[in-house]
């Protein structure tokens, strides 16, 4: 009987320890698999642009933060079920996501691009350097038409539940053979293996991979922004959690004015992706 009492007491005490450790702190969810936005080093520690930025924002907000890892396809459900309080995972602000969660103002923006292996038949697609789907116009229409014919019959790979998937399914580039993967790592693997003819993701996700792996992955076609690609990357926060939302907005203002976001963007992306 005595053993049971000690055991029970132990459980209650550890419960309180867990509770008190969480008091006054916020948890931020990230994927840890989308370099250079967020990733992991060889020892398994989270790093990347958003991990550094999260630490900087928490310092400004004077919050004690823990950054936790979460698979991409469960990111929004994990937020709404209170596994953590904010998302910083290269998540673009889109109208679809705004139906379920709120976003802070954008802190960074970065274009998407198609990528192929060097020597591919669509290594050179004759389009403008970049197209903005918000602006539209005949140039954009012409570019989409060129893309439609270039991509026709090709296997196009992308990560599941992303703006890139939304764009590929929107019909803007016609009917393609779409394959979706759990992580960008797997997209990169199958692109180099030759299972994918072409892949779509953030342009830096490909350039970062090409640089680190030494594989001949090259960007092709125009860079994309606007439309299905959303309006920059912001902090995802539960609906109704307006206090935290305001705190993040103020902290992003301060970090931008102090040049922290620009500095971190140049460190991780090699160019100023702040907004």
């Amino acid at each position: 009987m005595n053993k049971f009492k000690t055991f029970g007491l132990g459980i209650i005490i550890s419960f309180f320890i867990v509770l008190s450790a969480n008091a006054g702190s916020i948890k931020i969810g990230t994927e840890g698999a989308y370099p250079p936005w967020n990733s992991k080093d060889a020892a398994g520690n989270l790093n990347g642009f958003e991990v550094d930025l999260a630490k900087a924002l928490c310092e400004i907000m004077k919050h004690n933060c823990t950054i936790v890892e979460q698979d991409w396809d469960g990111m929004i459900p994990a937020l709404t079920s209170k596994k953590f309080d904010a998302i910083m995972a290269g998540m673009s602000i889109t109208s679809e996501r705004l139906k379920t969660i709120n976003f802070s103002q954008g802190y960074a923006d970065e274009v998407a691009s198609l990528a192929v292996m060097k020597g591919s038949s669509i290594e050179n697609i004759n389009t403008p350097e970049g197209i903005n789907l918000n602006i539209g116009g005949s140039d954009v229409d012409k570019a989409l038409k060129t893309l439609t014919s270039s991509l026709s019959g090709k296997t196009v790979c992308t990560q599941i539940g992303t703006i890139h998937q939304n764009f590929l399914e929107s019909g803007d580039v016609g009917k393609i053979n779409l394959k979706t993967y759990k992580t960008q790592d797997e997209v990169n693997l199958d692109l180099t293996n030759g299972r994918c003819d072409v892949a779509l993701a953030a342009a830096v996700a490909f350039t970062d991979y090409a640089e680190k792996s030494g594989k001949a992955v090259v960007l092709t076609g125009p860079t994309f922004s606007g439309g299905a690609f959303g309006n920059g990357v912001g902090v995802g926060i539960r609906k109704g959690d307006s206090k935290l939302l305001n705190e993040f907005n103020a902290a992003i203002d301060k970090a931008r004015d102090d040049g922290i976001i620009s500095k971190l963007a140049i460190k991780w992306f090699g160019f100023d992706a702040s907004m």
Partner: protein
Amino acid sequence: MMSIFPNLLNGAVITLQLLVVSMFFGLIIGLIFAILRVNKNPIINKFAYGYSYFFRGTPLLVQLYLIYYGLANIELLRNSLFWVIIKEPYWCAIIAFSLNTGAYTSEILRSAFQTIKKGYVEAAQSLGVTKKITFYRIQLPIAIKQSLPAYGNEIILMLKGTSLASVITIMDLMGEARKVNVLTFKPFEAFVTAGIIYLFITFIIHNIIRYLEKKYGFQT
């Protein structure tokens, strides 16, 4: 909830396909290896044991990744005829599942072989039946009948194993459920519906096996 149902049913068809095809190949592989396992030659015996040891000792997910991403990384293989098969996620899944269930099936059959009463074999021998005929006409049928209940379990385990196919881009039941989840951000609806469909398939398999057991099961 009703609107996601047709999508999930499409996925369930793929799941059933994966299950039936890999159980078919798995049964053939299992039979061959069970026969090799009871062979007296130590080299053949050890080889069959090694196969079942490896595939039962490593997670199915590891085997799936090994075949899908691992083999695709070997340039020699990418430039060979095999690439036609390895390139397709569907065939990679079939290979992984067949080899996995084959290993378990061989063990189920082996243990059934070894529990066959000596009396049956001796009776056949005393009647002058050759060893070969004794094996194919007496030992093998008894072993198959005896392993029915365990094999039924293996089919159900494999049904659940096929849900791993979604990690290599196959849109099976689990894959469709995950797609619904990322589109609607409602994991509960998506996965509960998928779970119910899996349960229903299990229910049917379970009843078929029970029927077969009653009709053909080995009574001692």
